[in-house]
């Protein structure tokens, strides 16, 4: 049964893939490194397990062109709090994403175009992107600009009559600036405009009648405009290490505001070992139309939602990583085996753990606040050629 499938998880997931694959390619006006990566990824937390492989291969041609291809699979097994609240059974599904990018270097300019598709049984998405970056000011500054257009087709399991569309446009601009011999700064802005079906056909709101919860379909606005800005600083320490920070601020037309701060430390221990340590704090406010449970009157308002990603909450994460490298004098220059893991804690301020058991134990409207922890690991092998 797929009655509470977390479709919002999937489309957010996908939209970022588009963004990152573009931005990673546009990492200053040099062609990206020729390398191939094979990764196993696994997320486990909050009743969800998502794992699968990812393959990323890049080939440069004539020192002017670069082609990259990525193939990625998510195998999802979910008995999340949303599934438990609805009383549905655990479900499984698979999402397959593939992307292709082409990059062209001309003097101090880099142009990238890319295309990505994502497919699952009830959600298909595709996106086109174009990015441009230019070095100037003695190559101390890099200006980058980009645009993406995404189109999603949304259907619903067990409902052949349901068919919706979503269109998404990204506009982004960034400036990377060398400040000293040891310090580089990077500021980015991105505006995203969504138009179409933005809610989750599998999710419901709870209406507290005083004696029981009634369920009704969520009603979201058909547009969402968001603005995000980030500032990153990377500082090289006197030994073979660097400390990096990222500050992020986000706001959107649904009334959500969020802030994040991240600190990373990377240390080259010797020619073979490289280790990373990072911490991150994130917090956000709720959407204007969010409520854990509506009363009978407020449930009549135009827009209503109970997606916990629209609620007020904070999260904290700690991450560790290590890489071991071999170097060669052959066609393959070097190889690495890498392990990265992040442990995350989520604490919700106005999303409650509503199940038949908690309601029976604590009484309607008095269920405990929801929290969970999760880990996300990546084990991958990389070669440079």
């Amino acid at each position: 049964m797929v009655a509470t499938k977390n479709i919002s998880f999937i489309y957010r997931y996908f939209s970022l893939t588009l963004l990152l694959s573009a931005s990673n390619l546009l990492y200053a006006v040099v062609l990206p490194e020729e390398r191939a990566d094979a990764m196993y990824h696994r997320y486990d937390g909050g009743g969800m397990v998502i794992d699968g492989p990812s393959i990323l291969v890049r080939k440069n041609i004539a020192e002017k062109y670069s082609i990259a291809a990525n193939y990625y699979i998510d195998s999802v097994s979910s008995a999340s709090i949303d599934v438990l609240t609805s009383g549905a059974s655990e479900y499984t599904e698979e999402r397959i994403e593939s992307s292709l990018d082409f990059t062209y270097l001309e003097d101090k300019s880099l142009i990238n175009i890319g295309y990505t598709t994502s497919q699952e049984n009830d959600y298909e998405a595709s996106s086109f992107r174009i990015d441009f970056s230019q070095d100037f000011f003695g190559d101390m500054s890099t200006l980058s600009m980009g645009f993406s257009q995404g189109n999603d087709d949304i259907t619903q399991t067990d409902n052949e009559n349901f068919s919706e569309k979503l269109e998404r446009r990204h506009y982004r601009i960034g400036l990377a600036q060398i400040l000293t011999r040891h310090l580089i700064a990077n500021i980015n802005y991105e505006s995203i405009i969504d138009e179409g079906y933005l809610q989750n056909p599998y999710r419901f709101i709870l209406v507290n009648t005083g004696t029981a919860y009634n369920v009704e379909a969520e009603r979201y606005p058909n547009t969402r405009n968001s603005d995000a800005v980030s500032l990153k600083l990377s500082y090289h320490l006197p030994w073979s290490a660097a400390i990096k920070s990222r500050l992020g601020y986000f706001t959107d037309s649904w009334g959500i505001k969020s802030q994040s701060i991240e600190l990373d430390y990377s240390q080259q221990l010797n020619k073979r070992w490289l280790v990373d340590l990072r911490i991150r704090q994130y917090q956000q406010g709720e959407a204007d139309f969010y409520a854990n449970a509506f009363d009978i009157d407020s449930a009549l308002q135009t827009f209503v939602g109970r997606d916990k990603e629209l609620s007020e909450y904070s999260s904290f994460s700690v991450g560790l990583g290590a890489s071991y490298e071999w170097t060669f004098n052959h066609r393959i220059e070097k190889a690495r085996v890498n392990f990265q893991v992040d442990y995350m804690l989520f604490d919700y301020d106005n999303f409650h753990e509503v199940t038949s058991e908690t309601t029976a134990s604590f009484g309607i409207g008095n269920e405990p606040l929801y929290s969970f922890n999760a880990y996300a690991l990546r084990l991958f092998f990389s070669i440079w050629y």
Partner: protein
Amino acid sequence: MKKIITLLFILQLLALSACSVKPWVKPYHRAKLANEVMQYDRDPISDGYIHHVRQARESARGAEGAGGGGCGCN
């Protein structure tokens, strides 16, 4: 009107002063900036993934951005 002229004058001075500023970190002084420990997204396949995981759980999205700075530090 006087305020506008004053503002334009100040902007003109700023523009002129900006033109007179020269790049102060020479290419041969950028070795440390090019070190891979300085890179925020050193491994695209892995860093992209963890960004995805975060955004799936958060309403915030966008402005993850690129690196750069002309140091060839990629």
